[in-house]
Structure formats: structure tokens, C-alpha cells
């Protein structure tokens, strides 16, 4: 019933207990038998995770193959570093890397500041009803899919009918601008879109953490004559720090991965915008689905996964050096 590879993993990482007369293996089997019901419960989910997450992790190595469909994926010959040589010979690799990191860095930093700021501010709104209304409204954008968001942006930027194009830009003496042809505008458009979509929901997580802070701390601070600002910098922010660090580690680990929908749909996949909107994810997608260039896309995919892996490890060890308790693992 049990997948032997799981059993092996458990043997390795099971917590060390005081040595008992029985051997490790006998103990392991004893445990499996004793807890077979619980193991059976989590087995289906574990299998789905294995299929969706673990097999693709090993699959990154197809980047070293020269895939042809006659031999199949596993049977295709090894290609060494050829795919990578092609990838890095183009200027694409550099461009998509810079775009990906720059956008994500901007999103992480501004998202963190804005979300925490909004959370602290909304917590200060005394009128309960108003506070509820603000929260309800500001998380709403996150419930819209990126496809819907692309329509919203389109409604503003439509080259002929868009609200901005038709009614706002003429006030500044500009007529009929096709934003979908102007790459230099898109860093701002995408940043604004992303913040619109995510700051509200981001702040809810911090708000939950703020409401978890004991009121007594604030009472004591008030007794000591600390003003509101002093309380925020002295109590709220330090107590939010662990949550901020954990979320930032997760985000840093993902700095090589982008919000594909944002870069693919909101730009309408416009070829003219590639120089400022092409990121690793859209590059891999295009190589895989539109251009059918498996070598290039699997090399970019490998590059993304492996660098992502080291970024996670790096971010976590950084967090651990700062403070043991805030590291993820």
C-alpha cells in the first residue's frame, strides 16, 4: 500500500528518539502498521503532490536533452549544454532576467511598504462601519482574474475609445496614443496594475497579525506616555516583523517567477512591448506553446528553477542569520 520512496524519506528525516532496543527499521515498520489509517488518509494527497510538484522537479533535467518526438522525452539523446549555449547566445536571456528581477523587486518592496502601511492605517480607523467598508472594497480587486484586469486596463488604454486616451490625455494636449505600442510606459502601467490588484489583500494578512497583538502592550505604552507614532514604531512594526520576514522570504524565493497573467494578458501579449514586458515566464511560455522551441524553453525553465532554488536557500539563511525564529527552515 505504501509508497516505498516515502518510507525512505521518513526514515531519513524522522525525528531522533532515544535509542530503543529495536532497530530503526523495525521501529519504522511498527509505526507504519500502527498508524496505517493516518498514512492512508494522507496518501492520496501525497500522490497528487508527487505528480504535480515532484515529478516536474526532476523533469527540469530535460534541459540537457535534445528532444525529438520519435525517441520520446526519456529516450532522446543528451545534448550537454547546447540548449544553454543557444539561450545565452541571444540577448533574450539577459533582457528577460533583468525585467523579471526589476519588476519583482519593485513589487516586493512597494507591496510590503504599502500593505503594512494600509494595515496600520485601517487599524486606526475608529468607526467600525467605515473600517469594514474600506476593507471590503480594497480587497475586491484581488478577486478579479488577470483576464478581467486586462479588460479593465484595456478600457482605460484602448487606442480609440479608452477613457484615459479619450478624456484624460487630451487635457495634457495628447491625442490618440496607442499605449500598446509604447514599451516605455509599461513599467508604470504594470506596477500600478499590480499594486491595485494586490495591496488590499496583502494588507489583510498584516491586519490579522495586528489584531493579534495584545492590547495590554498598547495600554502600557500609553501609561508611559508614548504617542501613537511611538506605539506604531515601537510595538506594531516590531511585532509584525516576523510575518514581514516570512512573506518576504517566500517572495524573494520567487523573484525569478512572475505573475504570468499580468505580463501576458494585461499587455495583450503585444509584440511591440516585449522590450519592457517580457519576463522569464512569458519567454518560457512562448517558447513552449507558440514557437514550439523545446530546447530554448526548457533551458530557460531550468535556469529559472535552479536560480530560484538558490535564491530560496539564500533568503532563508539570511533570515536565519538575522533572527533564528524568523527563518522558514
Amino acid at each position, binding site marked *: 500500500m505504501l509508497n516505498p520512496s516515502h518510507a525512505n524519506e*521518513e526514515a531519513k*528525516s*524522522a525525528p531522533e528518539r532515544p535509542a530503543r532496543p529495536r532497530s530503526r527499521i523495525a521501529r519504522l515498520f511498527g*509505526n507504519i502498521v500502527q*498508524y496505517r*489509517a*493516518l498514512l492512508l*488518509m*494522507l496518501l*492520496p*494527497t*501525497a500522490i497528487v503532490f508527487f505528480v*504535480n*510538484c515532484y*515529478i*516536474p*522537479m526532476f*523533469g*527540469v533535467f*530535460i534541459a540537457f536533452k535534445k528532444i525529438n518526438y520519435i525517441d520520446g*522525452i526519456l529516450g532522446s539523446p543528451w545534448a550537454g549544454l547546447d540548449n544553454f549555449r543557444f539561450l545565452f547566445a541571444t540577448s533574450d536571456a539577459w533582457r528577460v532576467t533583468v525585467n523579471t528581477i526589476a519588476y519583482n523587486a519593485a513589487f516586493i518592496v512597494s507591496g510590503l511598504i504599502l500593505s503594512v502601511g*494600509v494595515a496600520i492605517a485601517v487599524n*486606526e480607523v*475608529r468607526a467600525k462601519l*467605515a473600517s469594514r467598508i*474600506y476593507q*471590503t*472594497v480594497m480587497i*475586491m*480587486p484581488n*478577486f*478579479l482574474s*488577470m483576464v*478581467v484586469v486586462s*479588460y*479593465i486596463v484595456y*478600457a*482605460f488604454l*484602448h487606442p480609440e*475609445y479608452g*477613457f484615459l486616451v*479619450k478624456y484624460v490625455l487630451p487635457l495634457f494636449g495628447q491625442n490618440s496614443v496607442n499605449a500598446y505600442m509604447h514599451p516605455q510606459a509599461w513599467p508604470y502601467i504594470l506596477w500600478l496594475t499590480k499594486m491595485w490588484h494586490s495591496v488590499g489583500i496583502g494588507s489583510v494578512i498584516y491586519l*490579522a*497579525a495586528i*489584531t*493579534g497583538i*495584545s*492590547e*495590554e502592550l*498598547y*495600554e502600557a505604552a500609553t501609561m508611559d506616555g508614548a504617542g501613537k507614532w511611538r*506605539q506604531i514604531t515601537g510595538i506594531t512594526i516590531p511585532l509584525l516583523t516576523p510575518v514581514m520576514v*516570512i512573506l518576504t522570504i*517566500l517572495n524573494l524565493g520567487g523573484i525569478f517567477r512572475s505573475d504570468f497573467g499580468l505580463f501576458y494578458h494585461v499587455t*495583450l501579449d503585444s509584440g511591440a512591448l516585449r522590450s519592457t514586458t517580457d519576463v522569464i515566464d512569458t519567454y*518560457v511560455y512562448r517558447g*513552449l506553446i507558440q514557437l514550439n522551441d523545446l530546447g530554448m524553453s526548457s533551458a530557460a525553465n531550468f535556469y529559472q*528553477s535552479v536560480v*530560484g532554488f538558490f535564491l530560496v536557500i539564500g533568503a532563508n539563511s539570511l533570515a536565519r542569520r538575522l533572527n533564528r525564529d524568523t527563518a*522558514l527552515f
Partner: protein
Amino acid sequence: MNKTSTAASCQRISRPAELALHAVFIVFSLACILPVLLIVAISLSNEKLLTLKGYKFWPDELDASAYRYLFSHSATLVRAYGVTLTVTCIGTALAVLLIALYAYPVYRKDFPFKRAFNIYLLVTMLFSGGLVPFYLLYINYLNLRDSLVALILPGLTNAFYIFIARTFFQQTIPEEMIESGKLDGASEWRIFFQLVLPISLPVLATIGLFTTLMYWNDWFNSLLFINDTDKFSLQYVMIQMIRQAEFFKNQLAGSGVALMVQQSVPTESLRMAMVVVSIGPILFVYPFFQKYFTKGLTVGAIKG
């Protein structure tokens, strides 16, 4: 949490500061909601006036003909709704069950493989094989092209929700309860289904709502795996419609894409009406989300 006193109010911010705070949030709220209202306004506008005057927040003339057209030529819409609803219902039910079934054992303190299975999950949150192997696995080995399974299966693995459910168990289900259940001779399965599940309804409802939303809004898997127009989901039809409009503009009159919605050539208001119809159900379940929001999501929960 502890509402022992009105401590928050014992140190109030000044009146002007409070007004400024309200002003900021009113502007912020409007910024969140107005863009959506723009879409609604366009969908209710007269087509001729739209092409003359562009998109406006205030339609010169209310006109529901886009909706009339949408519902009278509804074959595409109904089919897409059917696909989305099927995937959402089956996907959500399966996902919630799988999440609960995994979260419960890893919550149990006496479960000797707890740590191993926690790590098993954590790894999937941090590392990913990326798109290419995932795609090739689904297409070449699982043969899921044009199968609804390809729209459901990817959404079943969300480690984050499992951690949330586990934390909820830790906070609400005392170990003693499980122990006494065991002493009464109940099997593990009975304890799970008759003791644990009923208590954990709130967290499962929250996760269920999020999963519903995730499936409802999913377009990525359709983009990857679906070519058959009969299996286009709502979101995917919308993608086709906006791209198709661009095609027309560039006089490229899209090939296969154009065929699908041939008899309903997407005019300006019609496309926006489609968007409104797709977000309608979300607004409907929205109040339910609200209720659980500030409670359920504790992120520090990830650490075991």
C-alpha cells in the same frame, strides 16, 4: 482577540488626523471600485455612442442590448459557464477533501511521520520544476489534452491551505478529544469524519471559498491544455474575445479563433457585458468571504 478594555480608544489619534485618514481611504476605495464600474458602464452603453464618444463612466444612454444579445446568442456562453461550473464544483469538493485528509494526520502530535510529511509539503512551496516539465508531463504522459481533468488536477495541490487547516486543528481540537474518541473504540476514520470534520467546518468553508474562486478565475490551464472549443471555460472565452478584437483591428481576421464566436462578432459593449457576467457570481459569494477574512488567515502558521 481580547476585548478586555477599550485600550485602542484610550489613545486616540487627533480629529484632523482622523479626517485625513478617512479622506485617504475614501480615495483608495474609489480607486479600487471605479475601474470595475467603468466596465459595467461600457457594457450598458449604446454601441454607436461608444464608438463616437469612447468609454465613459456615465453612459449617455442606457442600453441593455449587449446583454440581450449575449443571452439570445448564448450557446458559447452557456457552454463556457457549464465548463467553468463543472470544474469549479468538482475541483473544490476534491480539493477540500484532500486538504482535510492531509492536514489532519500532520496535526496529530503522536503521528511519527508528521515532520517528514510537513517537509514534503514545504518543499513544494519553495521549489518548483517550472512550466516545461509540468506541461510535458500532462500532455505526453498523462494524455490530458482537451480533458477537464487537466483543469482540475493542477488546483488540487496547495500546501498553503493545508498549513492553514492544520493550524486551525491545532488551535481548536484538543488532543484529549481524539484520545477519548480512541478510548471509546472509534476508528481513526470515524474520528476524522464524525469528530474532526464537523468542528472544522469554518476553516474548510474558508478554504472552499478560496478554492472556488481559484477555479472560477483559472485561465492558465485552459491556455495550456485546451484546444477544443467545446471545453473553453469562461475566462478562456474572454481571452479569445479580447485577442480577437485586436486581430480585427490589425486586419488579421483570426483563423481558428474567429470561428468560435463567429455569429457574435464581439462589439465593444458585448465584450464588457461578458466580463460583467463572469464576475457576477464572485460578487454574489463575496459577503461570505468577508466573514472569514480577518480570522482564518494567519501566516505565521507555516512554521511547524
